């Protein structure tokens, strides 16, 4: 019986520190990577400004949240930020559509090479970053309110009588649910609606799609709108789960790119898969397994070290190593995206 409890304790430990954080971080990455992969599939360039689009959308959501809070409006146990999301979404749609009209459209009409788009996106990144820092400042902002947890570690312990507690933050639960709903809606849109089909056709073969009467301007516009929605929601969820800091969002760029490429760039399912692959690898490699093995191994074999493969500061290295491995072994990504 005791052996069984030990195993259950070890499983709960892993659930608490690996599975739940991995799932929520993976969902955030997946939503971000979907935006990158859509822009890549339709507009055919790697968008360096994506991290800052997320930061911008989140910032607008935060400002709206603060305004709502000052008016005393809230959602009870749910974070007020959910109510403020539409403001952030609209603002980032405006941002992306304006940058497309003023920056990218010129290069698209002139059939510029992808590298030019990429450098232009660096300029957009600078500008967006400047705006975000100007408006909200470079520091940490917290905007989480309402209930903090779905299950608290202490309640879980008293409920089950186990040694290890399982805690699920409300933000983590929300992240997973919203990500599932959003992805389902996106796929319904891409598979079933006329515009979605046009987008897929355009991504697959531009000339053929144009011949068939697909309106390129509309496809591009819809792509930016979807990207803005995904980016704002991903950014807000990440901010609720951790905290909002403009610099962190810039750093998210690398794992998101890695997720998109690992899954197969230009392929939406690949982006989601890649998001979870990257997130779980980061969490698994940087978790210290000492306690798990204390439960699982007999006392005589108790491990001495932390049994941590890599220090948490190397999580960027993890996404990068996976990226390089995939590029070397299977350049199209796990799900056969485009070859750049």
């Amino acid at each position, binding site marked *: 019986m005791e052996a069984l409890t030990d195993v259950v304790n070890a499983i709960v430990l892993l659930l608490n520190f690996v599975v739940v954080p991995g799932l929520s971080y993976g969902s955030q990455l997946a939503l971000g990577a979907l935006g990158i992969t859509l822009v890549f599939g339709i507009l055919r*360039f*790697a968008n360096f400004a994506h991290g800052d689009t997320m930061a911008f959308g989140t910032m607008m959501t935060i400002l709206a949240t603060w305004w709502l809070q000052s008016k005393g409006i809230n959602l009870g146990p749910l974070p007020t930020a959910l109510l403020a999301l539409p403001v952030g979404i609209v603002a980032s749609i405006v941002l992306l559509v304006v940058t497309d009209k003023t*920056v990218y459209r*010129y290069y698209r009409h002139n059939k510029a090479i*992808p*590298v*030019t788009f*990429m*450098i*232009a996106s*660096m*300029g*957009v*990144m*600078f*500008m*967006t*970053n*400047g*705006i975000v*820092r*100007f*408006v909200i*400042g*470079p520091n940490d902002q917290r905007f989480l309110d309402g209930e903090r947890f779905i299950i608290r570690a202490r309640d879980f312990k008293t409920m089950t009588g186990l040694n290890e507690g399982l805690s699920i933050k409300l933000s983590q639960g929300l992240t997973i649910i919203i990500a599932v709903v959003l992805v389902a809606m996106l796929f319904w849109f891409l598979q079933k609606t006329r515009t979605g089909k046009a987008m897929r056709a355009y991504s697959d073969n531009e000339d053929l799609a144009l011949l068939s009467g697909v309106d390129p301007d509309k496809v591009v516009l819809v792509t930016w709108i979807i990207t803005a929605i995904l980016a704002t929601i991903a950014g807000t969820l990440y901010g609720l789960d951790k905290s909002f800091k403009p*610099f962190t969002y*810039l*750093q998210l*760029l*690398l794992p998101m*790119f*890695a997720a998109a*490429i690992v899954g197969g760039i230009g392929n939406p399912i690949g982006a989601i898969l890649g998001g979870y692959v990257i997130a779980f690898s980061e969490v698994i490699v940087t978790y210290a397994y000492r306690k798990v093995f204390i439960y699982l191994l007999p006392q005589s074999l108790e491990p001495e070290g932390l049994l941590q493969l890599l*220090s948490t*500061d*190397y999580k*960027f*290295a993890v*996404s*990068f190593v996976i*990226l*390089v491995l995939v*590029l*070397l072994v299977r*350049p199209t990504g796990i799900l056969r995206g485009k070859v*750049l």
Partner: protein
Amino acid sequence: MTNTRRTQLAFALIAALLLMIGFVQSWNVSLGILNLCLISAVMALGVNMQWGYAGLLNVGVMGFAALGGMSAVLVSKAPVAAAWDASWGRLFIAAVFFAATVGVAVLCYRKLAPGRQRSLALTLVIITGLALTRMFLDPAISDIESIEPAKTGFLGGMGLPIIISWAFGGVVAAGIAWCIGKVALGLRADYLAIATLGISEIIIAILKNEDWLTRGVKNVTGLARPVPYEIDLQNTVWFIDLMRWWHSGSLSTMNQPEQQQALKQFVIDGSSIFVKLCYSGLFAGVLIIILLLSIKALNSPWGRMMRAIRDNEIAAGAMGKDVTRRHLEIFILGSAVIGIAGAMLTTLDGQFTPTSYQPLRYTFLIWVMVIVGGSGNNMGSVLGGFLIWLVWIEAEPIGVWLMEAGTSWMDESNALRLHLIENAQHMRLFFMGLVLLLVLRFSPGGILPEVVSKQNH
């Protein structure tokens, strides 16, 4: 307007701006900006080699600059004898194991036929090798880090003059660039950009965490200088005499006690300007050497080959040029130049702080310099380095001043006004992005576009 004329005009403008800052603000500020301009120009030259000559998109400038900074520490700091005594045996064994792992892995990769067996063998070799290495490295590291962690806690350096680190930084950056290039250069431009972005983040993460190497986030301060210290100058006879001679005009009008006071102030001010001038001289020397070599290289058959490869890889390959090899070559060269600049920067700062390396400042700003200055044109990169650094530095006071002027009608304690003034400095990011986009759109060649010489036959 011909390109030479444009170059002269542009540099005259920069000189005038620096002189103006000297007269309006102070010579100290002006020379401080000039020194960083010189370093930025060297960095921009490095990026220009990769992007301008060969079309390689290196978004990992920050990593190579940080490697240069690390070299400054490793060269100039005195070795920590206690740490070496405590750990050299295990360090040696760990190094042997690591080298053996790499050797066997490479051998496996070369000798075995591609397939599942090879992947399996490679994985096995790497995992056992790294485990063995860590078995000896980990205790060695904890020994090193436990020796006076507040003061040293690392291996120290070689105790050589810091100026040697400039060359050493170039070599280290070149070595790492070789490893990266071997893996990443087969990829297309977009992937190379993302790959280099990742590598630079990893380099910074290593420098932040490997305390035994660089003290990590505890920073290394008090690096030796290649130039005299202000305090020594202030007590040196020839320097005081020099100041007396320099200011003899204004000194002669004063009486004796006033003269003493004034001279003392002149010596204090003069010493810090003198130190900055020494740095400027050194940096300018490096810049001129690298610039001359770059111009020579770009106009040589080798430079023409590079541009041919950039403009049409397939055609150049068909002409028998080894495209991958040439790319590797230029990637290493450019990275070495960035490494040199990184070492110079750390020398100027006198300290190594891994947390100060941020991609916007060390990667993307350098890119703005190259694009705005004129990619493919060496003088253009130098100009971009000067101009963008000037704007980057001066945008802050100007932004604050504009905000203050623009909001002067508001109340002194108005929250919005205070916020605007406090955050005005961040507008320079916005401004940089705007400059980059405007140049890219309306003058894609930059201020000094690439010179394409037509040869007459």
